[in-house]
């Protein structure tokens, strides 16, 4: 590990020096923000290029750009897909600040479903293995039960596949769902699902931009093996007070936004609540109508411009699921996040963002039995401080430097009971951990044909006392216990993650990219089930659990054909994962102080090819995504030590998305998905114990679920023409040809012949039609 790192640092130092010396001519900086002209939202990833020099940059996550050029006269082009480009001639003989506004393009391009990076950017950008979606992207797609969901739309892209039917949980390039870092305005979200994963916690009303990084992950991010999903909330309309909302079959949502303090600030608040339980209460069946099941979300954000150089943002999320079963059991769970950020411009070339972030996930489970009560609760809390400095050295060189300090507190479980409930009050020891990271990256356009982006992330994770630390033998029996006092470091893990990306433009319309990415993960999700449940338990790395680590190499070919408006990419990757976690047979995870004894460790590898072909222009647009991949695991304690396919091993995965603009009012869409069935463990024999047949297993994940495929169609009817009050209707049919896709397969004895066995498939959704009414003002 040390040698490539040293090399990278030397390389970095060398380029910096060279980059600074190369030009003796006077140089000035053009900088500013790019906004949407209608509502003032910042445009993230908008490009700013000179039409003659072919140099350029893109706005950062706050909409800021900075471009340093030799003195002279330039034609500058600000552009963002789906928006009319802005062209301006500038005489650059001093530093210039230009905050620009772009307006959505004509109707034909408006609400373009696929908003990729600006075409040229696909081949020029120093990014690969990154996919991006905005709320508008997902608006035209048919959805289950009318709930637009950015996490589900993302699953239509290569390398990303759903955990289960209808699930918002996802697997990226053969990793499991807990290996995705999900950030909402920089705050980690530990459980991104509502209603057992059928909906994500991200209300699409509140989202400005979402991007998922699965190949090259910039050094500013770390802490998970598979991917980073970075979601940014809207900042609120800076022009006028406005609102929008929708009425759906199972939920309704409302959003209000507007400027305040003479447009120095703006705010946005959004709420959503499901009301399936209100219908449930109307049912005559007393078995069902006494149950409660709902969730709500609340997003709010405000920002205020302190001056030309400073801007502060405060944003938060609060969401909760509530389930009650006939006043006997209840469970409620949810996330809360709060992010305070301050953008400061030291100069036109030096952008600093400071953040203070709080994140909490908790659940409460309770049982009521007459006048006795029992409660189980658990949480994970983060307090995070981040500094991120972006230094736009020249038009060819950008440096990013940052640090992050994150304090985690975990309460794995605590029970309290009242009355004569037989369960003893138990409080598991809290875990405390401190995670620090320092990163440095440099993007260097060495020649117009060759761009490097490289950097390194140093991270240090420490588990702190007070805590009893156990040691175990190979069978999981406790050998020894050691007590560590408050604040005493128990185990520290210093790690180094190098990252490198090389972009070679081989022609004006195509490029080749190569990347290497090292990743470490210090927090581990223990879950007894394949579907994410609210009782999921996150635990820190410790003396018994080493951080998970992975490295990934990938290569890609990118092609943009301006004329038919096609873009295509082909990427291949190979990923190696170590210190992967699985469970002992019959693992006892709940309220077990010695939970670490229930784990077994192994390694994995994943590799694949991803193809994406998109058309962004014309009345008929959409994309085709195909992934051919494998994901394999090897654990000494599982499957007799032999390699086996991971549950996320889906060999073929295909999505076809088509959108057709029929008229100025009607828009039609269709999606078809196909993937190989997940690898599962089925019995290969049976035997008798106590006169009951028992399944006999000979191999882990040696079977496949049946192939999964489904066609959804949708239609959106827009308003006649733009008015003060606009409304639209969305219609969709999920699973049009009513395929009974297996959710699970179980085995049982036949009712009429108890000596014979049969396989039973459970399927959740047949054909599901939905209508949603949306409005905005």
């Amino acid at each position, binding site marked *: 590990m040390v040698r490539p790192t040293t090399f990278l640092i030397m390389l970095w130092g060398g380029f910096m020096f060279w980059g600074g010396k190369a030009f003796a001519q006077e140089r000035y900086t053009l900088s500013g923000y790019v906004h949407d002209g209608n509502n003032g939202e910042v445009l993230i990833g908008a490009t700013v290029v000179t039409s003659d020099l072919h140099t350029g940059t893109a706005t950062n996550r706050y909409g800021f750009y900075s471009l340093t050029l030799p003195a002279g006269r330039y034609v500058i082009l600000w552009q963002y897909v789906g928006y009319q480009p802005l062209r301006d001639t500038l005489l650059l003989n001093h530093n210039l600040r230009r905050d620009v506004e772009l307006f959505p393009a004509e109707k034909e391009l408006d609400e373009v479903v696929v908003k990729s990076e600006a075409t040229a950017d696909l081949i020029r950008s120093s990014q690969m293995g990154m996919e991006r979606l905005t709320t508008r992207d997902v608006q035209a797609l048919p959805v289950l039960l009318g709930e637009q969901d950015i996490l589900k739309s993302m699953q239509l892209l290569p390398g990303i596949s759903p955990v289960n039917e209808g699930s918002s949980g996802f697997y990226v390039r053969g990793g499991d769902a807990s290996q995705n870092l999900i950030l909402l305005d920089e705050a980690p979200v530990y459980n991104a699902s509502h209603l057992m994963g059928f909906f994500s916690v991200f209300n699409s009303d509140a989202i400005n931009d979402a991007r998922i990084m699965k190949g090259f992950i910039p050094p500013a991010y770390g802490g998970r093996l598979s991917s980073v999903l970075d979601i940014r909330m809207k900042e609120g309309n800076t022009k006028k007070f406005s609102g929008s909302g929708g009425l759906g079959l199972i939920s309704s949502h409302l959003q209000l936004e507007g400027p305040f303090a003479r447009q120095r600030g703006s705010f946005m608040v959004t709420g959503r609540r499901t009301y399936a339980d209100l219908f449930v209460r109307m049912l005559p069946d007393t078995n069902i109508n006494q149950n409660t099941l709902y969730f709500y979300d609340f997003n709010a954000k405000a920002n205020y411009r302190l001056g030309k150089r400073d801007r502060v943002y405060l944003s938060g999320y609060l969401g909760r699921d509530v389930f009650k079963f006939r006043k006997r059991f209840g469970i409620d769970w949810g996330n809360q996040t709060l992010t305070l950020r301050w953008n400061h411009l030291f100069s036109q070339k030096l952008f600093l963002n400071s953040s203070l972030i709080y994140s909490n996930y908790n659940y409460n489970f309770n049982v009521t039995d007459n006048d006795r009560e029992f409660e189980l609760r658990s949480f994970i809390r983060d307090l995070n401080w981040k500094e991120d400095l972006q230094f736009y050295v020249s038009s060819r060189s950008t440096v990013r430097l940052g640090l992050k300090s994150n304090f985690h507190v975990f309460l794995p479980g605590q029970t309290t009971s009242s009355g004569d409930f037989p369960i003893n009050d138990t409080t598991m020891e809290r875990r405390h951990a401190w995670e620090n990271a320092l990163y440095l990256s440099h993007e260097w356009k060495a020649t117009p044909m060759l761009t490097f982006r490289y950097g390194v992330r140093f991270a240090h994770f420490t588990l702190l006392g007070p805590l009893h630390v156990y040691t175990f033998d190979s069978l999981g029996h406790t050998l020894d216990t050691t007590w560590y006092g408050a604040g005493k470091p128990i185990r520290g893990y210093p790690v180094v993650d190098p990252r490198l990306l090389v972009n070679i433009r081989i022609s004006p319309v195509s490029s080749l990219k190569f990347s290497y990415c090292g990743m470490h993960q210090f927090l581990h999700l223990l879950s007894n089930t394949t579907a994410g449940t609210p*009782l999921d338990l996150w635990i820190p790395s410790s003396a018994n659990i080493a951080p998970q680590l992975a490295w990934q190499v990938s290569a890609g070919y990118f092609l943009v054909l301006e004329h038919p408006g096609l873009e295509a990419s082909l990427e291949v990757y190979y990923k190696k994962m170590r210190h992967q976690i699985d469970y002992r047979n019959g693992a006892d995870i709940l309220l077990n102080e010695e939970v670490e004894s229930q784990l077994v460790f192994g390694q994995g590898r994943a590799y694949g090819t991803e193809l994406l072909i998109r058309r962004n222009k014309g009345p008929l647009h959409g994309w085709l995504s195909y992934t051919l991949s494998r994901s394999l695991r090897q654990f000494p304690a599982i499957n007799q030590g032999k390699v086996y396919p991971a549950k996320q091993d889906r060999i073929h995965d295909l999505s076809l998305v088509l959108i057709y603009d029929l008229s100025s009012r009607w828009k039609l869409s269709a999606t078809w998905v196909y993937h190989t069935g997940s690898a599962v463990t089925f019995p*290969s024999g049976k*035997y008798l114990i106590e006169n009951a047949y028992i399944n006999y297993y000979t191999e882990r994940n040696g079977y496949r679920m049946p192939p999964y495929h489904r066609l959804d169609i949708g239609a959106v009817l827009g308003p006649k023409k733009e008015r003060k009050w606009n409304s639209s209707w969305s219609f969709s049919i999920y699973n049009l040809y009513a395929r009974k896709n297996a959710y699970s397969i179980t085995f049982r004895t036949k009712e009429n012949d108890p000596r014979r066995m049969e396989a039973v498939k459970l399927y959740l959704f047949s054909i599901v039609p939905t209508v949603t009414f949306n409005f905005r003002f």
Partner: protein
Amino acid sequence: MMKKFLLILPLSFLVSCEEVIDLPLHESDPLIVIEGKITNLPGPYLVRITRTTDFYSPGPVPPVTGATVFVSDDKGNSWYFTEKRSGYYYNDRFTGMPGTTYSLLVESGGMTYRAMSHMPQPVPIDSLDVEYFAGTRFSDPGYYIIMYFTDPPGKGNYYRVRLYKSKQAGTAIYVLDDKLVDGNQVNIFLFGSTYQPGDTAVAELQSIDESVYRYLLTLSEVNASSPSGSGTTPANPDSNLSGGALGYFGALTITRDTLVIPPLP
């Protein structure tokens, strides 16, 4: 309970359906299955030795005949089990004593299989109670049994509860440990068997050792008659037998109580 509850949760609001499907499964080499129990009640005690068979095979499981079967205790006594029916090996010349560790030795086909189990002290049932439950999509309406017993102080007690209805044992496997209930009076709501007024319910509380508890716990997760699939990745239960055999050998104590379901008021 928690796991059952979690299964209910996702399914309760969805329209989910079941369908029997034709799913071909691999063939497997037959493996020996040994099941033996010693209790504190008088024998005869049975050690049954069979083999695994193909999953969809219609016939009975094949017996293993001609095996040598011995059980010995930690005081130097040893008993030979004789084969009375193919695969069924019996001995009725001793009664298990709580506090004793028993060992099983089976020789068959040139292989030797061994297991050990400690017989815990018996724990009495305090009482049985009955409660009407209107049922859900996942459980029938009817009268359910609630068992009360008092866990002796000190962790490390393991239990299995069995219910009988008209002398038929329920197939559901209930095991519990005293990790969270140590020293308390415990009440268990016994899902799985429903009764009607006038029925006689016999409930059995078995004290078992940790190895038997682990076996039965992991067995309950793959029991073909109890639903699985969306839960843990299934695997063969953790057996206390050496030599790669399936099944288990357990020494256990049994206490029983009976309740006649009262007629409707």
